[in-house]
């Protein structure tokens, strides 16, 4: 028995996990088995190339409460690799399963391959300051953040679907879940972003960034300080190590200094543009194009020029 297991409670992310899983299958010659909590996801995952999909069924709905059931599936099969979608819930589940398996785990793996009978992964350290290659003995666990991979193409033959009864953790009772993405905007899906930092003096001034965003057809994003300290923008627009990770075509950074904790969330953008009044600001080292100048002067001019 063996297998390359994938699990994510996030439907899109579950599909994306199959891309590295199918790559690992080429080296390990083991089946890809997707664990899911959703019947609908099961159909999709089978079509995207999972050899087998197991739907875990339980009265419990708390995703983290399925950790023991996922561990049981993985351990009974004698899995080689478990890839888990790197949401916070996913990281909780993956850490639990890794501990029970007595296994190593890479958090937020960017690249994965098998070499020397071990899983080789790449990830960042020190909030993005450094890149680290890790070698994880099998069985190995890795979490993968959303959009690290594109989902695979539909497979020639769809995999099989089974169901399995799951015991969930009943010690924790979930009293209430309040959605915080009320706006329904997913900035990680945006093609262009205008990101604002503390160079703006007050919330009302963000209108000049919105105006630029309008002519560029870009969504507004921000630094941690703008979202968490000033509360000028909702938290889901904040880019950085503990916020969102994005790779748009254009990342237009205005009035932000480009600290590594922020840049790690956007440095895979195709083109980075910066406007900042401090020529020595690290954002210019991270930018393809930049203007040194007062954003209050530059932005309206740029909006006008681009609007022509």
């Amino acid at each position, binding site marked *: 028995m063996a297998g390359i297991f994938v699990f994510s409670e996030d439907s899109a992310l579950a599909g994306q996990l199959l891309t590295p899983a199918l790559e690992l299958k080429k080296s390990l010659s083991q089946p890809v088995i997707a664990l899911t909590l959703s019947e609908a996801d099961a159909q999709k995952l089978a079509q995207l190339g999972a050899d087998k999909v197991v739907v875990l069924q339980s009265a419990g709905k708390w995703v983290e409460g399925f950790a023991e059931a996922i561990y049981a599936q993985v351990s009974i099969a004698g899995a080689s690799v478990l890839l888990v979608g790197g949401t*916070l*819930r996913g*990281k909780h589940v993956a850490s639990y399963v890794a501990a029970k398996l007595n296994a190593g785990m890479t958090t937020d793996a960017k690249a994965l391959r098998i070499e020397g009978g071990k899983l080789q992964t790449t990830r960042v350290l020190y909030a993005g300051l450094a890149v680290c290659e890790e070698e994880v003995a099998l069985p190995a666990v890795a979490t993968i953040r959303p959009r690290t991979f594109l989902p695979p193409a539909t497979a020639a033959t769809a995999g099989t679907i089974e169901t399995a009864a799951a015991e969930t*953790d009943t010690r924790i*009772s979930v009293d209430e879940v*309040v959605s915080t993405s009320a706006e329904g905007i997913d900035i990680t899906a945006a093609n262009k972003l205008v990101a604002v930092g503390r160079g703006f003096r007050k919330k009302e001034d963000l209108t000049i960034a919105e105006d630029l965003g309008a002519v560029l057809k870009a969504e507004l994003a921000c630094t941690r300080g703008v979202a968490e300290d000033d509360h000028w923008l909702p938290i889901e627009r904040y880019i950085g190590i503990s916020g969102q990770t994005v790779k748009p075509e254009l990342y237009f950074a205005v009035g932000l200094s480009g600290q590594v904790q922020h840049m790690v969330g956007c440095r895979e953008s195709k083109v980075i543009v910066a406007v900042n009044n401090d020529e020595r600001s690290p954002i210019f080292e*991270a930018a*393809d194009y*930049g203007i040194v100048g007062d954003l209050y002067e530059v932005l309206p001019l740029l909006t006008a020029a681009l609007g022509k």
Partner: protein
Amino acid sequence: MPKCLVCYKWTLDEQDIKIKPEDLSLDSSRAKGKISDFDRNAIEEAALLVEKNGGAVDALSYGTPTVKQSLKDCLSRGPEKAYWIADASAESADANVTANVLAAAIRKLGQYDLVLFGEGSSDQFNQQTAARVAALLGLPCLSFVQKMSVEGDVVKATRKLEDCVENVTVKTPVVVSVLSEINKPRIPSLKQVLGAAKKPNEEVKIADLGLKPEDLQPKAVRKSVKGFVMQRKNIIYKETSAAENVAKLKSSLAAEGLC
């Protein structure tokens, strides 16, 4: 009156780590130690809980022999006693080893109602330790907690996830990992710093934890660590005329097909 144990990591301050341009290796020779950022929130939360509810806070850290340097800072932040495990294995420890050591130490130290962690360490940010330790100890785990309160043996917490907040209830004993937004760690006063010197600390010998040699062998081994280098065009317009800069940037964006 909860008995709390807060676990923390003594890390290098990443602000002082430089990347050597010749080979992209990291130069941490000037980096000082610090209590990992999010762990300071965990210490603060434990201190606040005890200030409010009574009870007691102990602290526990596993690290290389440099971990001893952390004791005074830790104790000035509220804990009454600090336990420390200094062992060379910490140098290469992965989250599996760290959790094995901490879980064994917690078993030895006795029953705690709450075991607190920061959401991740400022160096590795594995975000694994709390859930791993809970799994090894067979305790429930509340991860990514933004707000919490304790009443008797009932813990109520608000967890903050990507797209929602979740209110949960659990009975102690429980493992908790906290987010940085849960509180603002205190800057210890002179009195607290002086008081820390009088507080007890105790070494927990790794040999006394009943661990097998393989429990201290990392399953995830760091093969290489290199500074991340941005490959960017760095075309910066800095004429005195803003209009001129704007015109140049517009043509650059047009050339990239972005406007």
